[in-house]
């Protein structure tokens, strides 16, 4: 099948076939990072701009390496140093960037729908690297890639997502992506952090971590933040860590070959204990490695799309 979409804004927009195409393409690109000369000339002369209004080392570096390994030129713009501080609107920033004729702009923003503003106004391909609590499509795709790599399949698995689901773009994108397959998804966290109506997406809700991880094939941990706005959702980080921090004992209830994932960066000792983070079930570093391959695949497909 052919890739025809100009932008990658939401997993919700992708068909199952499109998801599989990305995963298949990523598999072929993964091998490049294992060579001595980690470069192919495929995107030579193309320009990729990363526009990050929220800080990030992991995602931005991952995109930068992905672009560079495909021989593209990259430019990084972060909010603190940009015209954003001078009050320029997102739309104007986008239009200014467009005059440099970038092929792809990768944007991370604190507000849902921000990438869509650029996608509507600019000719460049726009990749959503995270828009508020809405979506983080490339994270979900690399998570699926990792699951497929470790488990050989995605269908028939039980996946447990633990943490602040309400404010997590990683949770949302993963739920949308995994629901394209035959999966059982359990969302676990404090009731204050689980959005009402989430069951309508076809996921189960569980407030008790022990019950949640029973027979899990995949456990996905999310970062926790104590305050959100004027009121607190949890009394303290300490209590959260006691109730929802993933410890080795919990994994004994999961399947023998369970894998533990985390989008990073981790709060060691809070949502994930040291021994689990560094333990045999953790595939967190594989996620990072796969992130480069998945992002290479996405850049390749977007730039080469059928027009």
């Amino acid at each position, binding site marked *: 099948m052919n890739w025809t979409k100009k932008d990658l804004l939401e997993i919700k927009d992708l068909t199952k076939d499109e998801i599989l195409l990305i995963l298949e393409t990523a598999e072929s690109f993964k091998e490049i990072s294992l060579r001595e000369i980690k470069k192919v000339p495929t995107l030579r002369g193309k320009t990729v701009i990363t526009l990050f209004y929220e800080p990030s080392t992991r995602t931005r570096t991952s995109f930068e390496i992905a672009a560079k390994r495909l021989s593209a030129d990259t430019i990084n713009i972060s909010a603190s140093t940009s015209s954003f501080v001078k009050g320029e609107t997102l739309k104007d920033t986008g239009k200014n960037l467009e005059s440099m004729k970038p092929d792809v702009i990768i944007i991370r923003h604190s507000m849902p729908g921000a990438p869509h503003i650029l996608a509507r106004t600019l000719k460049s391909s726009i990749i959503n690297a995270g828009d508020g609590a809405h979506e983080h499509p490339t994270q979900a795709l690399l998570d699926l890639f990792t699951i497929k790599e470790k488990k050989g399949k995605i269908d028939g698995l039980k996946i447990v997502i633990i943490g602040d689901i309400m404010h997590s*773009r990683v949770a949302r994108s993963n739920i949308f992506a995994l629901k394209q397959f035959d999966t059982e998804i359990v969302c676990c966290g404090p009731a204050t952090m689980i959005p009402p109506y989430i069951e309508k997406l076809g996921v189960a809700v569980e407030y008790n971590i022990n019950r949640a991880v029973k027979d899990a094939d995949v456990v996905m941990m999310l970062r926790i933040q104590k305050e959100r706005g004027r009121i607190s959702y949890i009394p303290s980080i300490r209590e959260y860590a006691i109730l929802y921090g993933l410890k080795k004992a919990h994994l004994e209830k999961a399947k023998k070959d369970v894998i533990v994932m985390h989008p990073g960066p981790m709060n060691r000792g809070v949502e994930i204990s040291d021994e689990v983070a560094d333990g045999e079930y953790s595939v967190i570093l594989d996620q990072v490695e796969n992130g480069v391959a998945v992002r290479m695949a996405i850049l390749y497909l977007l730039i080469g799309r059928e027009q």
Partner: protein
Amino acid sequence: MKILIKKGRVIDPKNNIDEILDVYINGNIIEKIGKNIKEKGVEDFVIDATDHIVAPGFIDVHVHLREPGYEYKETIKTGTMAAAKGGFTSVVCMANTEPVNDNRSITEFIIKKAKLEGSCRVFPCGAITKGLKGEELSEIGDMFDAGIVAISDDGKSVKHSGVLRKALEYSKIFGIPVISHCEDTDLSHGFINEGVASVLSGLDTVPSIAEEIIVQRDIMIAKYVNANIHLTHISTAGSVDIIAREKRNYKYITCDTCPHYFSLTEDATLKFDTNTKVNPPLRSKKDIEAIKEGLKNGIIDIIATDHAPHDLPSKDMEFNLAASGISGLETALALSLTLFHEGVLTLGELVKKFTVNPARLLKLPYGDLSEGNAADVIVFNPYIEWIVDKNTFLSKGKNTPFDGWKLKGKNLLTIVDGKIVYRDGLI
């Protein structure tokens, strides 16, 4: 001017009229309504209203004219032009201008400007509290003397229950209603309805209870002090339930809803189109059904527009930051007529929600076509199809989620005080 409107189907709910009749306007009053009024040859306009509806001019109890202070969004001149086009001969304009209409001089300014430049009647609504701060009552008596017809802190809810009580009590002196915007801001974190759409989009939410709690509170206080309360832009099934229940044993409760609350669900917000950002937010399918039921069985007395025009830059940004509101005067009639086409309301019931009921609430001598009344008349057709094009709006506010919609039903002629203020090419 002498205007003869012939052969239209005259729908005048107050006088229980629904038949083909002619209407003769002389000067600024309705001189005669009857069958086959003979042309005398001295008429300035003879309008053939065959196949059209002739009704009393509509009264909109909730619009934002933005003047003074936000003239770049709308002015009294452009807002009333839009109103006239939409079939409204009277509008009540809210107080959240800049400066706030919390004193006599702003009220007088608005009234004067409207007389000079307005295309329809403008009745200011005074602020309940000074500066809309929710603390001290504004000089309601002075404003009443200057011409306000109601008080409201719309845009905001009166947070302090004690202040609301005082406002309701004080309003009894003048016999004017308190128009209440119901929103518990401690429960509402965001901008869209808490429902399935919000799970999908990750936007911060406004649960239905944020509106319902204040609906209940405001009614209870009004009941307790025996005052007149009008709940504006109600949007949830829960609100309809509460109002239905309370109306059974207290009669000074009225409420209105807006066309967007029975035309769009929360799903419209999924693509982050800021034209769907409105407060209260678009709700779930269940709520829409309840609103329609509420209109059908009379629990919801009035349809108002909450016309909230905005300049393009205020809307052209991230959803969280964009201004809230829909420019609704020019689509209200057609959207409301879908209720007629769907069998929810008869034409008579629909007209009543825009005429008799608002007039009664505000104690205005309009909203019906009795002989001798002011000639505020409209002619509309419920079947003409047209496509909404925001670029043809007379309002400065082009912020509508209905752009491109094919609607059925159009206002063709608006007469205010005996003068034609709007005429469509089709008539």
